[in-house]
């Protein structure tokens, strides 16, 4: 029964969206808001890069871990906000999502892209990295990327949040967010997000954070309205 509902939902919206997108103005509703935290987040530890001098010398003060990045005004960064139900699956865009290794860190720390979208992994460091994503649903691979070698091109065919690590540099840790549709965003300082071009319908908006987990809210959009949805995560002090 649950399965049927999930399948039917997108089909109805698909019918509606094909009408909405047929016209010259593809504008639809927008869901926007802010992601914040309450409580005191754990203090991030500085990273000791002394074992990798080529990276350590790129920093005047040691960088800190990025498992929780608190922004100004209690905003929470690196949260993926996305439509988890109600929107049809979209075809992947032709542009590649780029994941860069620089200063023995991942930039961005959380990279969101779509199912079957090209993922390009670049090494800008003077040292070898190995890129080792740890998916549960997709294929697990592990590739070496010495300095000066071409970008690695990959794709994922299932939606999933995937932790990424480099085994050579144990402090390197990032995330891939593989999305089903094009309505998603990753929060920066300020915690703001905006999911635009949504045809009228009922949606489930979800917010995912690598340390604080997953939250969802139901939103109904009619016409070109903008609805505000805010997410508040409980910070863990450890």
């Amino acid at each position, binding site marked *: 029964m649950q399965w049927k509902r999930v399948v039917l939902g997108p089909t109805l919206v698909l019918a509606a969206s094909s009408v909405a997108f047929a016209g010259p103005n593809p504008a639809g509703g927008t869901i926007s808001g802010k992601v914040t935290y309450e409580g005191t987040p754990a203090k991030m530890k500085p990273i000791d890069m002394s074992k990798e001098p080529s990276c350590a010398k790129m920093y005047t003060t040691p960088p800190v871990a990025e498992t929780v990045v608190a922004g100004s005004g209690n905003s929470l960064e690196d949260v993926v906000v996305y439509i988890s139900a109600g929107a049809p699956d979209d075809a992947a865009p032709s542009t590649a999502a780029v994941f860069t290794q620089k200063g023995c860190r991942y930039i961005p720390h959380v990279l969101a892209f779509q199912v079957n979208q090209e993922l390009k992994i670049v090494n800008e460091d003077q040292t070898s990295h190995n890129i080792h994503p740890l998916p549960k649903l997709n294929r697990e691979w592990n590739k070496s990327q010495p300095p000066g070698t071409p970008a690695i091109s990959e794709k994922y065919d299932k939606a999933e949040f995937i932790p990424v690590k480099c*085994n050579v540099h144990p402090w390197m840790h990032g995330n891939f967010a593989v999305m089903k549709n094009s309505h998603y965003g990753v929060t920066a300082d300020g915690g703001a997000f905006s999911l635009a071009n949504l045809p009228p319908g009922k949606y489930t908006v979800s917010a995912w954070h690598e340390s604080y987990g997953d939250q969802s809210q139901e939103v109904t959009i009619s016409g070109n309205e903008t609805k505000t949805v805010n997410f508040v995560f409980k910070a863990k002090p450890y």
Partner: protein
Amino acid sequence: MRNILSLKFCLAVASTFIVPTGLLAQDQAAPAAKPASHMESHVGNLTGNSDVGRQLYFRYCWGCHGPHGDGNGENAPYLNIQPRNFVAAVFKCRSTPTGTLPTDEDLYNSLKRGFNFTYMPSWIALTAQERANLVAFIKTFSPRWVAEKSGTPIPVPAEPKLTVESIKHGGELFQKLECWKCHGQEGRGDGPSASTLTDSNDQPIRPYNFTYDNRSKCGKTNQDLYKIFMTGLDGTPMPSFADVVKPEDAWDLVHYLRTLQYNNPSPELTLWEGTPEGKAVVAAKRVKETATGSGFKP
């Protein structure tokens, strides 16, 4: 009877409300793929049958790999290199590129060879047909064997002639590719990152110590060594170098790696020791005495 029926009904109702907590919102819509109940394997001219393999599995394998094939057998908590999880279907020893399923022959060879330095013994005592049946059966644990095909084995070109130059070039690659970060400058498995390594289950794992033996986990031939770093050992920190090392360079690296195994005679080691440079390097590495100082001479 009525009681049983109502109990069944209650369970059915309850199960519709149970959502696996590990899965996130966007994953729940995905229909769960199911593994096949029957599988075959093809190894040489043998055809393995999973129905026969099942009986063998529940006699020899389930103590460690578990009744569900997830590596959680009765003995698993006591093993410090954990038994393979056949449900995840991520395998170390493959002839296929990283991220792909191994061939039936790869699994068959693993069973036959066993895994050096682990609790997995060699199953040489079983017949070839029995091993093929077991390979077929372990493929019934994961839906990956239904959804995907085995990868295409990577090409392994014929081994070029062994020369001192190829050993030296292999040594340069060992530096350039930073193999020493984990395996150590002398191949003792003691590089700067060695102590921090974990496998995909967050369990500590050691990089291979070349000086200990000449049998690595995935076989002892030069071809096996070539495949190890060109396919990577999936599920471990060892990555694939297929995209960054040319086949001819790969053979040079194989020749160099053999010279690190200085306690095990090989054509590479003999040639290397025949040069003044190589002789000095190997002699400096060889352990002449034990840690307690009592005279041990190789």
